């Protein structure tokens, strides 16, 4: 039994923030859970998928976030509780539905968890998703620790049902991915039966009337939040400085106060219901201090909303000084940490504090480097994407017309760096590579002579590239789409998708054939194995030079990490030392300097290349690149 499915009220367990959110949903009696994977949110649905059969839930990986939200919403419309999870970029995809769902309202508890990625550690941006709560007039909760992650999720279902609105929960990486103690409550045993009440209507229209009703609901939410246990103040009655914070900022603030030993001088207002803000509660606390510092991840959301309340009430409050991102006391980009918060507080109340030396980060990095092997941001050894980009690089050079690659979101985004030989020239949203190619594919009429290539992974294809491909054929765009089919949503943790033959809960599923889809969309489709570099180069050149219109080349080869789980390595690869000419070869360390698979290493002592047998997966691709034919492979 998993720790999140045990019915052990009062027991304390160690949970990851995302597991705590999942547990909160279970304690609320959730029945339908849907998501598209994306860090740092993926473990929420991943965890629930593991207990789905045991607890009688429907858990699915949907093809994209909008569909996922629609799936969870259907449960709500039928009177069940639904949970949907996604990363910040995903909310952009789901927002079209969300910003109509707010008007129609919902029935059973519906909770949308969005896990933001400050500093974009595993994202293309560091967008602050909270703005969508304000945009859509939707209640928003921000957990500050693991227990709260569970409690808030549970409570969000109640709030949702009381208001008839979906409730947003905004997590961040350090809440979602860290672990802490969580005290469990009871798991409900009820088995509600879904039913769509035909007396009910879920229409966004009439827009103005529903907008008015929505504002009334939001006023009720504001009233509810005045009493919320997720908002509290800790500190002296008249602090010299009040820190107003939400989410992971709470823990950072506590640590900073301890660092500076200023608990008697500085108070912390911790807000968990950040939209709509409980106005009376906020005003009451603003009276306590004349100087307020805001600590929150990414955008000055809390900061600006509190300032709005202040502006409306400043006559009664008198002069206040606000500090935060606007005043530059807190950086307005990147991720916070206790050091930043400590420094900001110390700056504002002038307490002696030995700050970290300026070169601390550098020294920490150096100290760590001695313990950790140096690894570049790189494709894994044996990754089919490396072979693909290698072939693309060669084909574009030989083609000689300065062709370029439009990128997309996935492991293959690393194609913008040395691991992908710098081939990828654009990177935006899911499916945007193909969409941009639709546009570039029209520019030949204005004299664009460069070949246009888009890349897209299999999961991304189902997610967002299919409409672009339909558009390409319909409007007669001329480009080559490389469909990198590694049969996995690899970057986010190998979640299954419509092409993999299994579901989130491990059940067998029909496989949707990528080739057939592309052909139906009117594309000329061919399939190659990227490990056959020569054939891939030849096919690329032929498609670029001889075929007009929409072409799709499916580069089919399973993700090396997935393969490693169920099959032995293809080849035993070796650099034959007597054949490797080392520095005298004239190849200028081609295998380790240019091809750069981490499975190849330069043996400084011998002055020759070697295979790192511990990590080589035996794909054999490198055996074709050595001018001295010193890299040999044998069937393993």
């Amino acid at each position: 039994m998993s720790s999140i499915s045990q019915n052990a009220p009062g027991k304390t367990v160690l949970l990851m923030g995302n597991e705590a959110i999942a547990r909160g949903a279970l304690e609320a009696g959730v029945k339908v859970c849907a998501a598209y994977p994306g860090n740092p949110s993926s473990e929420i649905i991943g965890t629930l998928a593991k207990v789905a059969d045991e607890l009688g839930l429907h858990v699915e990986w949907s093809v994209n976030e909008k569909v996922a939200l629609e799936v969870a919403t259907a449960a709500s419309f039928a009177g069940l509780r639904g949970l949907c999870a996604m990363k910040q970029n995903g909310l952009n995809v789901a927002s079209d539905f969300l910003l109509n769902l707010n008007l129609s309202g919902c029935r059973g508890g519906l909770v949308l968890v969005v896990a933001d990625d400050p500093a974009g550690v595993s994202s293309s941006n560091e967008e602050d998703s909270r703005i969508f709560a304000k945009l859509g007039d939707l209640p928003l909760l921000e957990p500050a620790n693991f227990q709260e992650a569970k409690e808030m999720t549970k409570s969000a279902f109640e709030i949702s049902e009381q208001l008839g609105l979906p409730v947003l929960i905004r997590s961040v990486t350090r809440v979602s991915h860290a672990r802490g103690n969580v005290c469990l409550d009871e798991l409900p045993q009820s088995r509600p039966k879904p039913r769509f009440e035909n007396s009910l209507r879920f229409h966004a229209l009439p827009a103005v009337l529903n907008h008015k009703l929505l504002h009334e609901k939001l006023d009720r939410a504001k009233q509810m939040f005045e009493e919320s246990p997720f908002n509290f103040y800790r500190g002296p009655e008249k602090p010299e400085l009040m820190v107003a914070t939400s989410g992971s900022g709470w823990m950072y603030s506590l640590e900073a106060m301890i660092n500076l030993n200023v608990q008697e001088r500085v108070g912390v207002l911790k807000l968990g219901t950040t939209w709509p803000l409980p106005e009376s509660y906020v005003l009451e606390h603003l009276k306590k201090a004349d100087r307020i510092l805001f600590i929150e991840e990414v955008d000055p959301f809390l900061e600006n909303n509190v300032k709005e309340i202040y502006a409306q009430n400043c006559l009664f409050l008198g002069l206040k000084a606000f500090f935060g991102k606007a005043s530059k006391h807190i950086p307005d980009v990147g991720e916070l940490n206790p050091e930043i918060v400590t420094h900001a507080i110390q700056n504002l109340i002038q307490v002696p504090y030995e700050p970290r030396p300026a070169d601390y980060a550098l020294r920490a990095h150096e100290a760590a480097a001695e313990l950790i092997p140096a690894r570049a941001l790189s494709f894994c050894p044996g990754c089919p994407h490396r072979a693909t980009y290698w072939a693309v690089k060669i084909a574009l050079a030989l083609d000689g017309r300065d062709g370029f690659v439009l990128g997309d979101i996935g492991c293959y985004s690393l194609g913008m760096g040395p691991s992908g030989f710098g081939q990828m020239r654009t990177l935006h949203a899911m499916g945007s590579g193909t969409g941009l190619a639709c546009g570039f594919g029209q520019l030949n009429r204005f004299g664009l002579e460069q070949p246009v290539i888009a890349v897209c992974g299999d999961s991304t294809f189902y997610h967002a590239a299919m409409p672009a491909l339909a558009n390409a054929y319909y409007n007669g765009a001329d480009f080559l789409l490389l469909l990198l089919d590694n049969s996995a949503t690899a970057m986010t943790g190998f979640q299954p998708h419509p092409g993999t033959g299994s579901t989130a809960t491990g059940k067998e599923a029909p496989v949707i054939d990528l080739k057939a889809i592309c052909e139906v969309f009117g594309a000329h489709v061919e399939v190659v194995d990227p490990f056959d570099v020569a054939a891939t180069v030849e096919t690329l050149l032929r498609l670029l030079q001889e075929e007009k219109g929409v072409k799709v080349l499916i580069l089919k080869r399973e993700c090396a990490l997935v393969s490693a789980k169920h099959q032995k390595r293809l080849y035993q690869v070796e650099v034959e030392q007597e054949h490797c000419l080392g520095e005298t070869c004239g190849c200028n360390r081609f295998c380790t300097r240019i091809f750069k698979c981490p499975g190849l290493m330069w043996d400084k002592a011998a002055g020759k290349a070697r295979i790192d047998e511990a990590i080589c997966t035996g794909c054999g691709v490198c055996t074709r690149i050595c001018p001295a034919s010193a890299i040999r492979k044998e069937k393993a």
Partner: protein
Amino acid sequence: METGEKVNRGLKALGEKVLNSDQCTACGACLSLCPYLRSWKGRVVKLDNCNLEEGRCFAYCPRTEVDLDEVYRGFFGKSYEEIEMGPVRKIMMARAKDPIWTKKAQTGGVVSALIDFALREGVIQAGVLTPRDGDLLPQGKIITNRKAVLSCAGSSYVSGPTLEALNRGPWKGQERIGIVGLPCQALALARMKTSTLEKKTPIDRVDLVIGLFCTWALDYKPFMAFLYKRVSSLSIKKLNITPPPERILEVMAGKTLSRIPVDDIRPFIRPSCRVCLDMTAELSDISVGTVEGKEGWNTVIVRTAMGENLLKRAKKAGVIETRPLPKDNLSHLKEASLLKKRRALDALKEMGEIEKGYFTLSANLIKCILSESGETLP
């Protein structure tokens, strides 16, 4: 210039001075030596950056820092001084006697017949030639028998990386080698021989170089795109340019003969041909070309003892027959050869300064070349 930095004589410089400056002759001397360069449809393409300070790619190239005196001394034992058409031991007209050669050959079939003879006599055990097949794409091939020699007869007027085959092999290790190449390829071979860099190719076993007269060669890709607009997509059997003043490119595709004015194909001449000093493939044992006004005959220039010996034996064995080259033809040939040199110097002057060109030549010789062609230095 004293910059303190080492002058690059590797791929970096080759890229800047030759590949990116459209000065590549596509001779193939730099290929299959390292993984950074590859040829595709008659073009040499740099795939990756290499930062080595010197490389064989640069050292062998016929368009990089060629010290003509040094190269000629290495090949002939004397400096670059016979400015008309290089060292000449003998000059004559010749043709192959066996119709097997004359039927398919461009003119007199002397080149094919001599290579075949050299193979049969054991003078060489392998040849590096350029097959002439339907898609016209020139590529080097190692040949060891008559059938293979025959497949290489005829010209396509398109240059290609023949010398890559020498670098690539595979070689058994003992064969003596004969190579048929254009003037730029003969120059590259001579540079390979004289280079002090460690050799990775069997250049020291190249005993015979038969050079082909050449005034220019075409760039494969644009020329083919043009050609297939003019002729059917059927396999092209033969290309021939009729002698002046007509100058028509005759293309035999399937059973149809198309006639294209040479002026229409001039845009596809490789820019690197404009700066070429050498029409008669001077750095060869034997140079072979056409004879104006004498269809079915080759002009043959014997330049080395090796060449003279081979020709003598071939004649004695009845493989070829020879006749004296008429005086008018000889003077026209010299004139044309010098004209090519003068045009090359003019082209270099247009591009900047002759002294900054790809070869070093004394001011006196430059003056000489320009004046003997009726021109003087400004």
